């Protein structure tokens, strides 16, 4: 892969002293991954609980707007932690992700999930009843919730799959 821009960048990144430190201390990568997974746990649960509320499967006694206000704001600071730990993991093993199609799939899905979540949060904060006004809105809300659940699940799968699809 050397010769391509990404390949060269990956090679350069892997030769930096930060990358070298991460590689040589055996505990750093599993520790970063543990923080990464714990953050995913908080983010994924927060997103899913709102989706399940849209399906009226949980938290039925609480207005959807309240559930969204409680859980969706959690996502953004946690996402920051994920971006930091994820970036450090890339610095430690650049080729594992930068030369891996699964990684780019995961990032594309993440962008999609972020857009969807921002849209959901925005619609619910500007009009708490937005998804519950009539039957059509409720169905649309359930569809959006299902897509959200599916995308987050795919992101988690892709994350695990990076380990199995790395080249070399």
């Amino acid at each position, binding site marked *: 892969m050397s010769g391509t821009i990404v390949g060269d960048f990956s090679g350069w990144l892997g030769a930096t002293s930060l990358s070298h430190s991460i590689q040589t201390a*055996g505990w750093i990568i599993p520790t970063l991954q543990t923080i990464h997974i714990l953050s995913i746990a908080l*983010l994924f649960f927060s997103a899913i609980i709102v989706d399940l509320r849209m399906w009226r499967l949980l938290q039925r006694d*609480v207005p959807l707007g309240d559930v969204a206000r409680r859980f969706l704001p959690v996502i953004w600071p946690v996402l920051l932690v994920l971006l930091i730990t994820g970036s450090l993991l890339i610095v430690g093993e650049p080729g594992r992700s930068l030369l891996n199609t699964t990684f780019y799939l995961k990032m594309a899905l993440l962008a999609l999930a972020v857009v969807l979540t921002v849209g959901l949060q925005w619609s619910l904060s500007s009009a708490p009843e937005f998804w519950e006004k009539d039957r059509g809105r409720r169905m649309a809300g359930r569809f959006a919730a299902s897509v959200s659940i599916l995308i987050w699940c795919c992101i988690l799968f892709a994350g695990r799959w990076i380990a199995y699809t790395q080249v070399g």
Partner: protein
Amino acid sequence: MLHLKELISFFEDSSLAETIRENDLLFPLIESVHVLAICLVVGSIMAVDLRLLGLASVKRPVSAVTRGILPLTWGVFVVAAASGGLMFISNATKYLGNGYFIAKMFLIGAAGLNMVVFHFISAKEMPRWENETRPPLPARLAGALSILLWIAVVACGRWIGFTMQAG
């Protein structure tokens, strides 16, 4: 101990275990389901723990918080245990020889015990304090202990992956 060994080889030699071992896709697939389920188990339990600590969902009574979350926790726990069980039987002897695996099982047991103790002792008087922003010390301790135990469970889980790589 002999019976335990026989039981383990019974599972390990089963055709199901063999299929998981030898199919290239099956193990990563089960593992992904396991990670997904664990994330929801841990995320949902932490949401309850944070309420017990008085750090989240403080405007809602504790029982309302648990009622809205724990059904999900139990559902995904079953999925996590089943997928974990499938990974275990595919290589039972090696897992049993792995210190992090043993530690993880004990930590899950400890988390369960913490929950039982809280439920049967501290939670008995819950109606008296469940509306308070900051629950009493025993409840806060149970919440803090639970968070620490589950962090350790996830860490052990990740470390199993790094110490079992020989295959």
